[in-house]
């Protein structure tokens, strides 16, 4: 069975997970120009959570996540679909990319980015849903 709570794993998870999450966001945001993107970032983030899950068990992970993993999938699908809509406003075909530059920061926000965030959440949610459901079946939740 998957035993949680060995010292090395716990410490490592506590240190690594924030880094992994940060790295995943970094991958997500730079994905349009450098290797990365929503799918990869989602996988990295789910790796981080999976590590935490192994170290601290399901209850702690759920508390930290705050939302049920299935709801992440829903949010992701919602964002990806929403990102398809602004194009219709301009009378362009469904999913045509729209770009807006935020003046002060010089940051380019776009519907592909929104779409990628949606993909990120879906990947994260899907993997976590499967992992959590599998772990819960193991009868040693904490």
């Amino acid at each position, binding site marked *: *069975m*998957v035993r949680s709570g060995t010292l090395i794993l716990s410490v490592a998870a506590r240190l690594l997970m924030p880094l992994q999450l940060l790295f995943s966001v970094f991958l997500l945001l730079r*994905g*349009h*120009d*450098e*290797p*990365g*993107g*929503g*799918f*990869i970032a989602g*996988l*990295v983030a*789910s*790796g981080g959570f*999976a590590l935490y899950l192994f170290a601290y068990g399901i*209850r702690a992970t*759920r508390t930290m996540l705050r939302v*049920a993993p*299935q709801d992440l*999938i829903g949010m*992701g*699908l919602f964002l*990806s*679909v929403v990102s*398809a809509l602004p194009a219709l406003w301009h009378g362009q*075909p*469904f*999913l045509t*990319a729209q*770009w807006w530059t935020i003046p002060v920061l010089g940051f*380019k926000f*776009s519907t*592909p*980015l929104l*779409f*990628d965030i*949606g*993909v990120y959440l*879906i*990947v994260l*949610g*899907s*993997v976590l*849903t*499967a*992992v959590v*459901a*599998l*772990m*819960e*079946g*193991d*009868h040693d*939740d904490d």
Partner: protein
Amino acid sequence: MQLAVLGGFVLAAFAPLLHRWFGERAGLVMALLPASLSLWLFFQLPAVTAGEVLVFEYPWVPGLDISLTFLLDGLSLLFALMISVIGVFVLIYTRGYLKGHPDLARFHVVLVAFMMSMLGLVLADNVVTLFVFWELTSITSYLLIGFNHTDPEARKSALQSLLITAGGGLSLLAGLIMMALIGDSWSLQGLTSQGDVIREHGFYLPILLCVLGGAFTKSAQFPFHFWLPNAMAAPTPVSAYLHSATMVKAGIYLLARLQPGLGGTEAWMTLLSLFGAVTMVTGAFLALRHTSIKSLLAYSTVMALGTLTMLLGIGTKEAMVAFATFLLAHSLYKGALFLVAGILDHETGTKDIAAMGGLRRAMPVTATCAGIAALSLGGVIPLFGFIGKESMLEAVLHAERFSPFLSALSLSAAIMTLAAAAIVALRPFFGTRRETPRAPHEGPPEMLVGPILLAGLSLLLGVAPELASGLIAAAASSVNGEPLHASLSLWHGINPALMLSLVSLVLGLLIFRYWGHWRAWLRPLEPLFARGPEAGYFKFMDLIVTVSIWQTRMLQNGYIRNYLVMTLLVLVGLTGYTLLARQGLTFDFALDVHIHEVLVVGLMVSGAITACIMRLRLAAVAAVGTMGFCIALIFVTFSAPDLGITQLLVETLTVILLVLVLFRLPRFASLSTSLERVRDLVVAGSTGLLVTLLILTVLDGRLFPSISDYMIANSQPEGHGHNIVNVILVDIRALDTLGEVFVLALAAIGVYAMLRFHSSEHDDRHPPSRKESRNG
């Protein structure tokens, strides 16, 4: 126009909210939409009767030639008016009929959605849009018929109507697509204006049969007529709406709409007039078998639908005018009669006519409405139904073919319909007073307003038919394809049609007088009715179930090894055959490999072999993982870092998931015989061989120019990104990705559901509720 119809769907979605705000009056609030639509349509009358065709352009999917363009000509206007006017009354009526029903909000959602689908159907100019609305009416009417979902009978009838109409819908889709391809237009206007091209094409007959398959099932023509009376399981306002002006008339509308494009040929005339005539007599005859007022009316609807089809088949100008007149007359009186039937049912607690009698004192208004509407149904002077019947008889008498046969059938149908009308109008209200389950009294005003106005219209248009002449002429012109003139009048002088009317009046009253004897006389024939087309339907359903069970046992027995063998064999067979037949095995390549590539590939191969021969699961998983990491290495050496990273991450997570899964599996055991293993080896080997051959073939000759140049060229200027892989994923091919993430989400939900339900079966500590899983 588009705004009104699509807005109607939005209104349907907000029906529950309206119920919260307005309570019982929500139905009245929602009736404002069809009411304002009716008014608007009414104001279009002068333009349309002057021969104008109003077009409301609206592109939908321009790339595929699909538009949401609406078209308002005589035929559409006639239908749209009937749909929205009767819709108003039905919505008002529902307030009384379903008073206090807990699911009233749900009812309104579906009813308004159905109304809008129907409107879209009769207004659509595009073939695809028409089909979309057509299917929407099938689905919404399924929900309406099965509204009393706790009643197994209602569920069965709803499913039957759905299967029959949706099955017909598939046939219609095939017909419409063939027609659009031949006519090279997706617009109905474009198609009907070039009827000669379609009629002379070799595919004309298949098209005709497919379209008729759709129209006949929807409009309950023989031998598909049985679903319509069964659909009476619906609440009465639904029956009133579906069977007077809407759902079942959709098929008729389609035939009328396509008449200029498909009509006029030998096959069209023969099929439509014969099937129509047979349906007409079947409906009229079966109506008299029933004592339930709703069944009786339903079969008389079948009769009317048959008549309409027959008139389209006859195809003369006279028949077109008769078609439009009969259509309007039928909607008015049948709507009124069904609403009256609902009042009777609601106030007396029974649907059985034989159990009612002498109600005229208790329900004078209902009795009057029923009388007027039934007289119109029977085709008695001076009601609008009389004009409809007269013009129908004239058209039949002057038909170019089968005239004697059609006349005989029409006469007998008219006789039996008159008897049915007399039964509906006289039996419940006159004669001796009978005790009914509930003490009868007049219906509430919201239930009476519909019958009063519809019956009143029947009378008004009968006395002053010139009021409707313009609309009838415009509708008949659109069916005809060219403008024609029509003048309706109540009195045509003494002519053969009038004689036939008189004969039917006398004989019909005779049947009415001896109705009890008639039913007793028919009783020995019961076994024959039981063997009607409906029995064929049930046989067919049983057959489908049997075949499904058989093929599930054969192909989908739940063992993943069998699925894999099947899938791979099909893949090898089909792809291999195509490769050999189309391409042949010609390739030459120069071997140009580096030592590190050979090392990686060697590692992969040994990993694969190890995975196959390992007798420990964990070791096998590790071996497969090795292969995955080697693949990642290959991606990296060929400068695809994104793929490499993804592969690495996927491998890592796969190992995590597999480790979790491994604990749940039973002990490792060898279940296959050595023969099966040889079979598996052959399947796996041939799949590998096929893929190798495919890759070699693809590498050898460029079959088509590579698309990557386009991607590379456009990624930065168009997609604003340097990472081509990502630009492809989220921009160039975003629709693909959208589809894939939906699949991913579905798969995750599937895993979740499977594990939750599985564990809750074995262990009550983990019930599958979301709330629990959030807290737990």
